[in-house]
């Protein structure tokens, strides 16, 4: 309240007003006052003056105190009004107070006025404050209500008794119950609390009660649908200005979503922790301010210090593998840079204290504080993970992938992955596949294209059909030697494999592998051709060699003829005592039985003869000479020579000279000598020696002997020696010098050396073969010398040398001749072979040219012929009206001729083509083929009522299509030439180990056997065209086919009795 009271005085009598003012001043009341004497003045003052109190005159004439009171209270509500009246009376006072006056003071008791004013003003102040407080409360409540009505949270206000003063409509959204329900039931709110949260709810109430201050708690409330929602509850007591408790204001916020998020977060944190554990992640925390590094247990375990102390930062660096340290420190350095975001990730090796190493993957982050230049790193946090296994498997995987990739890329086969649905797009393929194609695919590849887009249309159809099948059956499919023209016009062949890629029973892709086998394919064909050629040549060569062998035999015969004429017997002996050859003399002397053993037919023995020396030469392998008494009682000088026959078997050549007469002469000389011995006793020894000499020297007609008496130094030659050397007997004295003169100059040294060496080396004998030059005619002869030394039994010194000289020129020549003739023979065989080979090559060339000619001719002739036919046709169909009946007939004849000529050319072309195409051999079941061929004549068979019988047939190596053609032609012929009869055809076969012989027998018209060869020649007909149609080339084709299969074909027939065609084929292809 102001110190000064503003008083408005309404007083009709100004003196009374002065009196009241004086009175109040006297009382010591500080006041300002305005006085109004009438109604107008009163209203005017009210416009300018704000009074605290009105003192109104009860009895003003025009405007009484009640009116003034009503007027002032219009403007200042509740302003205190004290009515001052001159007249007293209780009734008046009651009237005033009833009318609303604050007090009633009599004029004559103004002493009470100051007190009355003071009290009135106090009451007024109080009322004013109360009114103001009420107004504020009202406004606050309204504001609360307005806010609460629109707030999202559930707000309520409880009066001090716990009843709802207000409940915001949001409650329905949160709890499912309306505000009215809450207001009607004060306990509903508590009942909705979740049983698990009730304890918390109650402790909240107790807390709140005890402190009477704002309090928060969270719990769940039940909704009518049975679900719960989380609410965050806040409540606070409300007091008025005077501290009076006005109730509780509460607010509930729906935090279900936040709770769920919290739970999710919690779960995620939990999961992260579990993941951290599961991933064997270790953590580290480095505080840069304190320089403390903390490793968790996992990190310590990883680094090989389980349960150990945290290392210092500089110690920790030592765990890093030296090779990785530099790069890691560089990276860490970067992450410590305040301008960076501080994160880093590194893979490096850690060396444990025990020396073992593992790969670590560290992911960390550096945290900074401060801004600008003050910004600096304060902390480094991160995780470690042992990725050794991953590193290893990564490395392995990388290597495997590289290997597989490399393998796939470098595989010399086209690999493609196709989509498993039409149109089968290419998902991937290797480089090889790409290179199979022409541009633009070669450079760009085919990924994303389908097969229609890059393969030739016609082949794509076939390939897609295969794709369809593989997808449908889920089974892989393979094609060998699949022809394909990816890079036209090059013909290629592939071994093609297409497999489905099946995952969970579904075909998810198709894997195609194409292996280029063109070279192999072509090589096989070429090889095949080469085989056939080789076969042919071998056969030819064999024939030539046979011929050459015959020649050789003839020449050997000549040699034998020479032997026949010799006056000695000559025979050949085999080791089993047979005589495959003996000359005429032998035949004459002993007879000849080549199938008997020698002792059987010569001596009629069952054992080899005792004392036969012939076969010793096989052991010594040297010529041997001995005497033999023949079965005819005569003596023979025998020469045996071992030699090897052309086939390598050992043979003995024996030569026998009849020496019976000589023997007898010897005998008589011996007898004569004996007489002489008796008569000339002193010369006995000499004679004896001479006899011996003679005996030896005359053992063979061509054997000379000599004797050197070393004691006497006398050399003696037999007469034969003189003859051999071409010296007239006794013309020269025998001397070593004369002997050496006769030795061929080139052999002289060797001969001299042989003799002197035998003496020097103490040998008892020596042999030598050398040439001599005959004195009489200068002829060069070959001699064989053999020398024996005789020693003094007492001293061992050589006292005598006895030698034989045998002229072996003829024998040598014979041997030489034999060898030469064999060489010659061989040479001629070789020469002939070469000549024939050249001839074969030439013939092949000519054949090729001929084939080419036949092909070109037949092909080129077809052209104009076709046109003749077409234009004749046009004449017939379009211009026939211009022709008379003759013209039409001629035209038909032209057409007929053209048709025939075309048939001939067709057949000719077919024949020439037969030789061109290489054969593809495979196992062919001839029974099947024969049946197939027969089936082609079903109509003829039905029409004629004939039969075809097929016996068991073999499976042979052959070209299938050609075999079919062969049977077709032969069966066709049988049908064609059946005459008036029903055709009955029999197909049978005989076979041995290597070949089979097929018989196709009919009961047709047959032919003369003399034509059997002619019918296989092209265009050879045995019948007029009017009788039997055809180009006359069917059998020629048959022969060609059979010959290409290295077989033969012939025919046997008799007119009217049917024909049989006999085909001989090898079962297996040679080579």
């Amino acid at each position: 309240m102001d110190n000064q009271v503003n008083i408005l005085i309404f007083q009709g009598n100004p003196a009374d007003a002065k009196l009241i003012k004086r009175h109040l001043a006297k009382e010591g009341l500080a006041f300002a006052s305005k006085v109004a004497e009438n109604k107008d003045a009163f209203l005017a003052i009210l416009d300018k003056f704000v009074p605290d109190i009105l003192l109104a005159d009860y009895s003003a004439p025009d405007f009484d105190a009640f009116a003034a009171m009503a007027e002032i209270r219009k403007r200042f509500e509740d302003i205190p009004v004290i009515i001052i009246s001159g007249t007293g009376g209780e009734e008046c006072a009651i009237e005033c107070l009833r009318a609303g006056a604050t007090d009633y003071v009599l004029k004559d008791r103004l002493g009470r006025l100051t007190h009355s004013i003071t009290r009135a003003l106090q009451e007024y102040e109080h009322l004013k404050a109360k009114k103001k407080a009420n107004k504020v409360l009202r406004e606050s409540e309204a504001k609360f209500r307005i806010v609460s009505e629109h707030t999202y949270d559930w707000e309520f206000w409880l009066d001090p008794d716990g009843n709802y003063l207000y409940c915001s409509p949001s409650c329905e959204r949160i709890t499912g119950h309306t505000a009215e329900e809450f207001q009607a039931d004060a306990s509903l709110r508590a009942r909705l609390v979740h049983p698990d949260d009730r304890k918390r709810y109650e402790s909240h109430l107790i807390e709140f009660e005890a402190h009477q201050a704002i309090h928060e708690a969270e719990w769940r409330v039940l909704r009518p649908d049975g679900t719960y929602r989380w609410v965050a509850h806040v409540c606070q007591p409300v007091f008025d200005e005077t501290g009076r408790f006005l109730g509780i204001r509460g607010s509930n916020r729906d935090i279900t979503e936040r709770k769920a998020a919290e739970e999710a977060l919690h779960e995620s944190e939990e999961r992260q922790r579990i993941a951290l554990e599961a991933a064997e992640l270790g953590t580290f925390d480095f505080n840069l301010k304190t320089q403390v590094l903390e490793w968790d247990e996992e990190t310590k375990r990883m680094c090989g210090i389980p349960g150990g102390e945290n290392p210092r930062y500089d110690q920790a660096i030592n765990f890093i593998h030296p090779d990785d340290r530099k790069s890691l420190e560089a990276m860490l350095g970067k992450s410590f840079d305040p301008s960076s975001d501080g994160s880093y990730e590194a893979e490096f090796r850690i060396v444990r204290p025990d020396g073992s190493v593992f790969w670590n993957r560290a992911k960390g982050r550096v945290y900074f504080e401060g801004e600008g230049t003050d910004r600096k790193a304060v902390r480094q946090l991160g995780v470690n993970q042992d990725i050794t296994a991953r590193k290893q498997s990564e490395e392995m995987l990388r290597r495997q992938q590289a290997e597989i990739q490399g393998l796939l890329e470098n595989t010399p086969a086209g690999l493609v992955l196709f989509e498993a649905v039409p149109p089968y797009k290419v998902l991937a393929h290797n480089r090889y596949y790409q290179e199979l194609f022409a541009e633009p695919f070669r450079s760009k590849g085919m990924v994303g294209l389908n097969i229609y887009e890059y393969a030739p249309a016609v082949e794509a159809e076939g390939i897609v059909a295969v794709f369809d099948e593989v997808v449908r059956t889920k089974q892989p499919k393979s094609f060998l030697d699949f022809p394909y023209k990816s890079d036209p016009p090059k013909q290629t062949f592939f071994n093609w494999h297409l497999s489905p890629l099946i995952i969970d029973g579904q075909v998810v892709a198709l894997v195609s592998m194409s292996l280029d086998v063109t070279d192999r394919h072509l090589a096989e064909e070429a090889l095949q051709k080469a085989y056939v050629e080789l076969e042919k040549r071998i056969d030819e060569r064999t024939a030539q060699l046979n011929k050459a062998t015959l020649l050789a035999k003839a020449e050997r015969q000549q040699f034998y003829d020479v032997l026949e004429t010799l006056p000695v017997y000559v025979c050949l002996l085999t080791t089993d005592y047979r005589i495959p050859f003996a000359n005429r003399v032998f035949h004459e002397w002993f007879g000849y039985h080549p199938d008997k053993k020698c002792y059987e037919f010569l001596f009629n023995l069952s054992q080899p003869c005792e004392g036969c020396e012939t076969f010793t030469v096989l052991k010594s392998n040297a010529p041997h000479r001995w005497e033999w008494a023949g079965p005819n009682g005569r003596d023979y000088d025998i020469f045996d020579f071992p030699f090897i026959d052309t086939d390598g078997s050992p043979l003995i050549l024996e030569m026998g000279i009849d020496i019976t007469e000589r023997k007898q002469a010897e005998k008589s000389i011996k007898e004569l000598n004996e007489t002489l011995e008796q008569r000339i006793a002193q010369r006995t020894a000499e004679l004896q020696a001479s006899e011996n000499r003679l005996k030896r020297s005359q053992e063979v007609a061509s054997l000379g002997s000599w004797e050197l008496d070393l004691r006497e130094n006398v050399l003696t030659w037999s007469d034969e020696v003189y003859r051999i050397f071409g010296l007239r007997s006794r013309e020269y004295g025998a001397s070593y010098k004369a002997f050496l003169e006769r030795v061929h100059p080139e052999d002289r040294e060797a001969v001299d050396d042989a003799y002197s060496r035998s003496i020097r080396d103490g040998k008892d004998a020596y042999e030598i073969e050398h040439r001599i030059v005959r004195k009489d005619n200068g002829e060069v002869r070959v001699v064989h010398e053999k020398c024996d030394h005789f020693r003094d039994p007492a001293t061992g010194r050589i006292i005598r040398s006895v030698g034989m000289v045998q002229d072996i020129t003829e024998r040598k020549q014979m041997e030489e001749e034999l060898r030469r003739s064999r060489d010659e023979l061989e040479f001629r065989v070789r020469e002939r072979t070469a000549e024939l080979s050249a001839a074969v090559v030439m013939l092949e060339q000519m054949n090729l040219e001929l084939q080419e000619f036949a092909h070109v001719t037949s092909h080129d002739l077809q052209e104009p012929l076709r046109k003749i036919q077409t234009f004749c046709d046009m004449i017939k169909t379009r211009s026939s009206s211009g022709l008379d009946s003759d013209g039409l007939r001629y035209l038909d004849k032209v057409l007929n001729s053209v048709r025939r000529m075309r048939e001939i050319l067709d057949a000719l072309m077919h024949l020439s083509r037969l030789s061109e195409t290489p054969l593809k051999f495979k196992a062919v079941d001839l029974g099947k083929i024969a049946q197939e061929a027969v089936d082609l004549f079903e109509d003829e068979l039905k029409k004629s009522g004939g039969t075809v019988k097929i016996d068991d047939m073999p499976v042979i190596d052959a070209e299938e299509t050609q075999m079919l053609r062969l049977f077709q032609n032969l069966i066709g012929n049988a049908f064609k030439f059946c005459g008036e009869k029903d055709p009955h055809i029999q197909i049978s076969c005989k076979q041995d180990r290597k070949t089979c012989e097929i018989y196709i027998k009919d009961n047709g018209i047959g032919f003369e056997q003399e034509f059997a060869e002619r019918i296989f020649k092209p265009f050879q007909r045995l019948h007029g065209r009017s009788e039997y149609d055809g180009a006359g080339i069917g059998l020629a084709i048959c022969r060609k086919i059979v010959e290409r299969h290295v077989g033969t074909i012939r025919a046997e027939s008799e007119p009217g009795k049917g024909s049989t065609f006999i085909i001989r084929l090898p079962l297996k292809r040679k080579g």
Partner: protein
Amino acid sequence: MTTETQKSILMADDDEEDCFLATEAFMESGGKAAFSCVTDGVKLMEYLSARSAPGPNGLPDLILLDLNMPIKNGREALLEIKSNPFFTSIPVVVLTTSAEKKDIEFSIGAGANLFITKPSAFNDWIEMMRSIVMRWL
């Protein structure tokens, strides 16, 4: 329909009689297209190169191609047509005297749409043309 554009057939064959026969047979078969002939592979490629779009005075709707022609034979021409993106979609019928497997394999492999050996009887020519017209025009 009158608004339909005129179709055209181009025959490449050095044999004048065959060109004549083909034209006659085409008329007889009731074909409505323009029928032109060139006599070798070079002329064929020139004809095609001078035109860039199908339609009247444009690319032909069908090519009848003989394999054996002077200067540039049908094989080379076929390969060129099928490797040229502008011409590759034109159907090519190889019409030749050959019936050899290697020619058939080559033609189909090089992208020919059909391989026909020239018929002898004129009626066969007409039949052939009728099927060709039905199939491609």
